[in-house]
């Protein structure tokens, strides 16, 4: 087994293998996640509302996602009259691209990443902001008033939330000193007290105060912004079904609609994966380090930890969605500009100060 791995990890074989694996892998991963997160969402919603959720198709309703997929694919795809047909068709394709690009640089395990990029974090944010363009295109091209209103909302919301998100990430970067995602995870080895969410408060290894004592707040801000960026409740103004029918996707039918849905879940996966690796130590074990001699099995174990943390965060997303009413969008903007941005600026300054502090003594 390990001989095969050793062969595969040789350059340049490794490069092509990785490329193919990545393409197939991410497509499958995004597809499976989107399908089964819908199932998790519906099942979770059911449990929160004390009903069973989907349970007719297969055991525990596990065959519901394929059934839904078949249904969506069987539906007629229509372009509304007066719509810009090209952009209308292009939008679903564009909306799925950014999260897939982001997945390329996210390390799911020690060596399990398609592309070990030095500026991985930058790439994630760069592509993360593009998906709003696709939503806007879709909303604008469908020539529907509800869709246009929704498109306008999406843009203002994303602009407002990009800023605090970047600010808190900069705070974190000041501590880590690198944009390489795998490197960031490597720094958090040792146990849960080494994860950034704890290390920021007190650095046990160095035995002095951490770089950012407000790191739980930072995490909260990051998570909130992540919800807002992915247009999830309570910030789901983009598809506020009781106001805007289905928001930007009102005119989409069949798989066009399905792809928007998939993109939403893919974005959640990316967001939660990012939160996991920035704050919760990525694939690091919560106690101690996975011994290096375990080799690939250790990596797989790490991947298990990563998924456990990530899916827990995703469950929280579902939990939040089925608990809160939707915010009004000026409240949302107020929250961003009046609370989140000042607070993240404060943490930024604080971190800058605290990082200098140990040097003074």
């Amino acid at each position, binding site marked *: 087994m390990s001989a095969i791995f050793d062969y595969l990890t040789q350059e340049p074989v490794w490069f092509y293998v990785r490329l193919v694996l990545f393409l197939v892998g991410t497509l499958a991963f995004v597809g499976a996640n989107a399908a089964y997160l819908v199932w998790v969402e519906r099942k979770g919603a059911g449990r929160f509302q004390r009903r069973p959720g989907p349970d007719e198709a297969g055991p525990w309703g596990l065959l519901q996602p394929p059934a839904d997929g078949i249904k969506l694919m069987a539906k007629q795809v229509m372009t509304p009259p007066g719509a810009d047909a090209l952009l209308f068709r292009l939008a679903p394709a564009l909306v799925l691209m950014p999260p897939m690009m982001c997945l390329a640089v996210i390390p799911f395990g020690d060596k399990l990443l398609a592309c070990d990029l030095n500026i991985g974090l930058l790439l994630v944010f760069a592509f993360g902001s593009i998906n709003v363009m696709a939503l806007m295109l879709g909303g604008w091209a469908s020539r529907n008033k509800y869709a246009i209103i929704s498109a306008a909302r999406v843009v203002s919301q994303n602009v407002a939330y990009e800023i605090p998100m970047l600010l808190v990430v900069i705070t974190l970067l000041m501590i880590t000193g690198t944009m390489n995602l795998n490197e960031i995870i490597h720094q958090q080895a040792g146990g849960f007290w080494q994860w950034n969410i704890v290390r920021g408060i007190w650095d046990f290894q160095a035995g002095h105060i951490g770089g950012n004592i407000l790191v739980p707040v930072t995490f909260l801000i990051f998570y909130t912004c992540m919800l807002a960026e992915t247009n999830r409740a309570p910030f789901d103004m983009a598809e506020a079904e009781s106001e805007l029918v289905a928001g930007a996707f009102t005119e989409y039918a069949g798989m066009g609609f399905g792809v928007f849905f998939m993109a939403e879940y893919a974005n959640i996966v990316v967001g939660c994966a990012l939160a996991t690796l920035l704050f919760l130590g990525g694939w690091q074990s919560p106690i101690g380090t996975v011994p290096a001699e375990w080799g690939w099995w250790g990596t797989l174990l790490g991947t298990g930890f990563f998924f456990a943390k990530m899916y827990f965060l995703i469950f929280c997303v579902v939990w939040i969605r089925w*608990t809160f009413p939707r915010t009004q969008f000026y409240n949302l903007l107020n929250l961003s500009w009046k609370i989140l941005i000042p607070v993240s600026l404060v943490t930024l300054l604080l971190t800058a100060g605290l990082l200098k502090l140990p040097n003074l003594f």
Partner: protein
Amino acid sequence: MKTFWEVLLGLKSLFTGLSITIREFFKPTITTHYPRQTETIPARFRGHIQLTQNPDGGASLCIACKSCERACPSACIIVEGVKKTDGPGKTVSEFRLDFGTCSLCGLCIEACPVKPVKAIEFTKRYNLASTTNDYADMDLVQRYKDLQAKKS
């Protein structure tokens, strides 16, 4: 400072909400799994009407007085009677209910003069959904006979 407390209290209210829903998450479900489980239908349930089974067997209690037909607000009952061969009075020969227009109000039953047991009663049938309209046209005399045959 005021804003600060407001934010904190707001945050607290959000966490209270989350704690409530997560508690509900682990409670058992409260739904009835319809085709496999059914609810017990209460004794006074108002289904469609039918001719009451004569406790002594034999013909229906209905004397074809048409009180129910007159009382019905939706005009969905048609009653026809024939002279009894073995004594005075009439007996019902046709009793049709157009269930599609029935409003399940029970005024027909209240209007029925037959005592002590009324000649019509509510059934407890509720799963009458159908893809065609035929089910709505009910021949209650036929139904009476069928039920009687089943009983004996």
